[in-house]
């Protein structure tokens, strides 16, 4: 039904997709798996016309015809509908209004609400929802919202449905219902592509599995022909060799416990009854690099931010001890003063002021260091920025350059400068190498080694397993807000970590049944 041939998509500095071939049979469920950043979503965005024809190379052949989609409307016209990971529903509109948003029923200047709701009810029935189509989206749970998204896709006369991580925010029960619904649709001739991290779900529902890794197609497994076991799929996903990509750390002595967190609980800031972090305890020692591994949405960022002065979540409970002394951190200021630093994963959104120069960004978290009684010493500020530019080897014509003009790797270095200048004892680095090139990654790793050599502690949150394995002295595995594994440097492996995550997924499932 669909064939994508030799798809290559290049972003500035990264080849997101490299000659990808992808074939979907009519009336089947095809799973697309791979690590974070393997290119799954990019491939689907190419297919749906989000990246218009011309911005990639290669051909999309759909029902025997080469397609050149220039926007999403084009692909939807052909019956290709994508359901994104983040639900695209308007909370204060009703189910019916949401389902036909952009596709209003009736005449151009007179929406036919009776028809809208009648149609909506029809499709809601198909997906097994009994809610009135006039119910507001905000009043139904996430599981049902996901079903509304599917009903919305059906209302667009979808023949090829793409689901990007459809179960990532659902509990086991809702996930099961959704997967069964997909199987039901298959019987009626619907074709689906499902992107998922949850290997157990994939092997339950898929007819074919295509594995992507680093923007390349690795293999396609077919049910009944190939081994469909979880181990086999994981091997395909992570099977890359660890080479000398990580600088050696020598003579760093691991000392006393620097940070100890006990029985940490955090609830979601909006859906306040939802537990995001569930009874997490961990510790970090002086001179130690501790990796936090887990899938996207496992709660790693939420854990870090909630510790860093309650920057995330509600109903936070638990204790934080720094150098053995219990501290109360109610604001980022208190956390910084206690010796913590949180280097965000989202350097553009919540890390740097892109429209300001390097110097201003460098001193932002410790303006006291360059000011007296509230008056800034601009010359000292420039000197500090210059010192850190040299120390971290940031490539820029001058520290008065706006951060927005720098490359990702250099921006990351400025962000690190800012937090190093705040002189913390414990640094939490959230995805410190996301979206930067290999050379800059190596430099960041060297900086991490220097930090621990100075006796600081580093917590590194990373979705890249090789990085976690290559850099950490100890690794915690987080899944669904709980710590589900702890490994020492020697005993950890990609397979073990993955297996750890999957085991807890299926544990939870068994408990439910």
């Amino acid at each position, binding site marked *: 039904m669909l064939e994508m041939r030799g798809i290559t998509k290049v972003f500035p500095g990264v080849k997101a997709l490299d000659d990808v071939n992808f074939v979907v049979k009519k009336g089947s469920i095809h799973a697309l798996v791979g690590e974070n950043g393997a290119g799954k979503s990019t491939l689907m965005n190419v297919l749906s016309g989000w990246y218009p024809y011309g911005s990639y190379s290669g051909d999309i052949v759909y029902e025997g015809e080469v397609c050149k989609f220039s926007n999403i409307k084009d692909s939807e016209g052909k019956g290709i509908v994508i359901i994104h990971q983040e639900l695209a529903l308007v909370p204060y509109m009703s189910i019916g209004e949401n389902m036909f948003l952009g596709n209003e029923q009736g005449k151009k200047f007179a929406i036919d609400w009776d028809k809208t709701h009648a149609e909506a009810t029809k499709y809601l029935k198909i997906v097994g929802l009994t809610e009135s189509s006039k119910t507001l989206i905000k009043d139904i749970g996430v599981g049902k919202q996901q079903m509304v998204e599917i009903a919305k896709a059906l209302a667009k006369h979808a023949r090829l449905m793409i689901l990007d991580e459809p179960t990532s925010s659902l509990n086991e029960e809702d996930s099961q219902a959704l997967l069964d619904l997909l199987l039901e649709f298959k019987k009626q001739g619907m074709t689906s592509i499902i992107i998922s991290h949850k290997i157990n779900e994939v092997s339950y529902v898929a007819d074919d599995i295509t594995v992507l890794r680093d923007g390349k197609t690795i293999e396609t497994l077919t049910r009944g022909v190939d081994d469909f076991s979880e181990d086999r799929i994981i091997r395909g996903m992570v099977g890359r060799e660890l080479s000398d990509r990580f600088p050696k750390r020598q003579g760093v002595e691991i000392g006393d416990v620097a940070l100890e967190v006990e029985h940490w609980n955090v609830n979601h800031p909006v859906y306040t009854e939802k537990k995001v972090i569930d009874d997490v305890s961990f510790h970090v020692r002086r001179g130690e690099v501790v990796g936090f591994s887990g899938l996207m949405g496992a709660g790693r960022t939420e854990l870090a931010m909630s510790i860093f*002065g309650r920057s995330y979540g509600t109903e936070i409970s638990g204790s934080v001890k720094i150098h053995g002394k219990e501290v109360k951190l109610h604001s*980022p*200021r208190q956390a*910084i003063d206690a010796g913590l630093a949180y280097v*965000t994963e989202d350097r553009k959104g*919540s890390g740097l002021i892109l429209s*300001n120069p390097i110097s201003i960004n460098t001193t*932002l978290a410790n*303006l006291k260091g360059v000011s007296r009684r509230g008056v800034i010493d601009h*010359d000292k500020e420039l000197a500090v920025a210059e010192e850190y530019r040299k120390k971290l080897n940031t490539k820029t014509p001058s520290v008065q350059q706006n951060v927005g003009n720098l490359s990702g790797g250099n921006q990351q270095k400025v962000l690190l400068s800012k937090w190093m200048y705040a002189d913390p004892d414990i640094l939490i680095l959230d995805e410190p190498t996301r979206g930067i090139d290999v050379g800059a990654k190596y430099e960041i790793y060297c900086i991490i080694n220097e930090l621990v050599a100075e006796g600081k502690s580093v917590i590194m949150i990373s979705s890249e397993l090789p990085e976690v394995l290559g850099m950490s002295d100890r690794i915690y595995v987080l899944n669904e807000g709980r710590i589900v594994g702890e490994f020492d440097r020697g005993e950890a492996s990609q397979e073990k970590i993955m297996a750890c995550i999957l085991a807890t997924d299926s544990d939870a499932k068994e408990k439910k049944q």
Partner: protein
Amino acid sequence: MTTKSKILDFVQKYTMIIALVLVTLFFTWRTGGKILMPQNITNIISQNAYVFVLATGMLLCILTGGNIDLSVGSVVCFVGTVGAVLMHKDLNMWLAVVVMLLVGLAIGAWQAFWIAYVHVPPFITTLSGMMVFRGLSNVVLQGKTMSVTNEKFVQIFGGGANCYVKDVFGGSEINILCLVVGVLACVLYLFFTFRNRSTRSRAGLEVESLLKTLVKAVVIVAVVIFFTLRLAQYKGLPMALVWVAVVILIYTYITSKTTVGRYLYAIGGNETATKLSGIDTKKIYFFAYANMGLLAGLAGVLTIARLTSAQPTYGQNYEMDAIGSCFIGGASAYGGVGTVPGVIIGALLMGVINIGMSIMGVDANYQKVVKGLVLLAAVIFDVVSKKKNS
């Protein structure tokens, strides 16, 4: 850099100054030079004193993320009302001024509290203030005019025929004090510029080329001397200019040299990053709006002095003049960008357009049309140039 991109860079950096020069030249031509007559130059400053003061305060609010304060016109009126009533009751003039400023500050703090700590959108909070304080002024004045008869007050705050700094040197044809102040300002400017330059180059920091500094210095000195000469030919330094200068100096310092100022820019640049850097963003919002109230109080003082009375209709559309000046003066509608000198130039540009058109005898309604279009053009320029940069 090629010559073309150099010129583009220059134009972009000094757009509003260039615009001000062009507009001034245009009106000099159209009015046969009348706009540069000593009296008109004095008028541009005295008539617009309130705009300079309000725009400076408004800038701080806008810096936090394009937030505006709609209530300032009404606050000006209310503070003026309070002052008129107090002085009518023969309260000591300085005491009355202090009370007026405190009333402004209190109103600012009231609004700032809701904005900063309860997260009521600034637009709504200050829209409410706009209605409340307009209403209260009407209530207190019972819809009537109350005249301000305290001559000393009127003179010190820039009203009446005699509101100029006394020439202690007793010049007759020309005001000598005014010239002395002008020359002194130039000397101070040159001193600080070159001292700064030498300390920086000694510390091994980057400095702009000597030629550039010299050209800049020559232009600034020439402009200052020209204007002080003009003022000296009329009646000397208007008192309003003294107050405006004090405000400009203080707030230029705050925005460029202090940590509070830095945080205002930081919030507008990236609020989350600022918060995560351990900065109490609520306090900064509070500061911006409470300060706006204080400056609205000062504008109230200047307004009733200049008009020698308080009326329930005073201060109408003042907020729009202030907001307009900020955006014309290069403040970004998204926050984080803008300077006090820039805003002053924006206000001057509006003032020149106003007075120029008045001299030309353009209908007041057309004046509004022109001012509206200038505002839009300035913001379009900001948005487009930003897009090009990213």
